[in-house]
């Protein structure tokens, strides 16, 4: 008898902790963009990302050490010879941003560039 009277309140209390609809979403995984760095170019040479959307640039060196620097976005990463490096960021402004190789890699280093378009 006592158990029956205890059960209903317990069920009601328990139900209060079961959400009807979950408001918690798993955080969206950042978008991963693979880039190959080689003497003396980045492939792809242009990418487009969205303002406010987390991105990870996954940069692989096909030969010597390279770097990728977007001065206007305060982003810089170095990639070891034959290695891979990741550059996570969330763009906070729109525009066209030029990235430059930031590790001296040979005679064409000065012209080794890529463009990132940040759109709404």
């Amino acid at each position, binding site marked *: 008898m006592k158990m029956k009277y205890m059960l209903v309140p317990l069920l009601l209390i328990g139900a209060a902790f079961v959400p009807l609809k979950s408001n918690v979403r798993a955080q969206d995984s950042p978008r991963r963009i693979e880039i190959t760095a080689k003497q003396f170019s980045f492939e792809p040479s242009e990418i487009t990302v969205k303002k406010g959307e987390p991105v990870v640039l996954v940069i692989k060196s096909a030969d010597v050490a390279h770097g990728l*620097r977007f*001065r206007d976005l305060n982003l810089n990463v170095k990639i070891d010879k034959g290695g891979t490096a990741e550059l996570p960021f969330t763009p906070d402004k729109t525009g066209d941003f030029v990235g*430059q190789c930031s590790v*001296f890699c040979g*005679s064409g*280093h*000065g*012209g*080794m560039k890529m463009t990132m378009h940040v759109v709404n």
Partner: protein
Amino acid sequence: MCVLALAGLAGCKATAPGKFETGVLTFAKHHVFVGNKKEKNPLPDNHDTWNDGKEAFSHYCVACHGMDGQNTGVPFADRLSPPIPPLTSKDVQSYTDGQLKWILDYGIKPSGMPASKGILSDDDLWSIIVYIRHLPPAGSQGVPDIYTH
């Protein structure tokens, strides 16, 4: 013919130019040949840029200019014609930033100063100019590795 040939050979020696030649060419470089006088350095003149410039300078500039930009440890600095000037000299420091960028981009003929446009990035070159404006004391950076072994 022999006299002319000998004179020609003597003329090929890398001896230091005379005062007149130096004066004329210095004036010509500063006021006629070296362009881009008015362009300003887009990079901030701060310690980060200086460090970037020092790093970029170390790629190959040190082979002729030494690590301090004042020829320390460079065995042939005064054996070129014209000799390599210390980058602290008035001749160099009196160029504007834009002119220094022009020199780095295109080099100077007939000196051994090479054209670095496309080899080093614009950022590299502008940061080197900040380094040149604030060179460390002569001898404080040691000798380039290539000359120590």
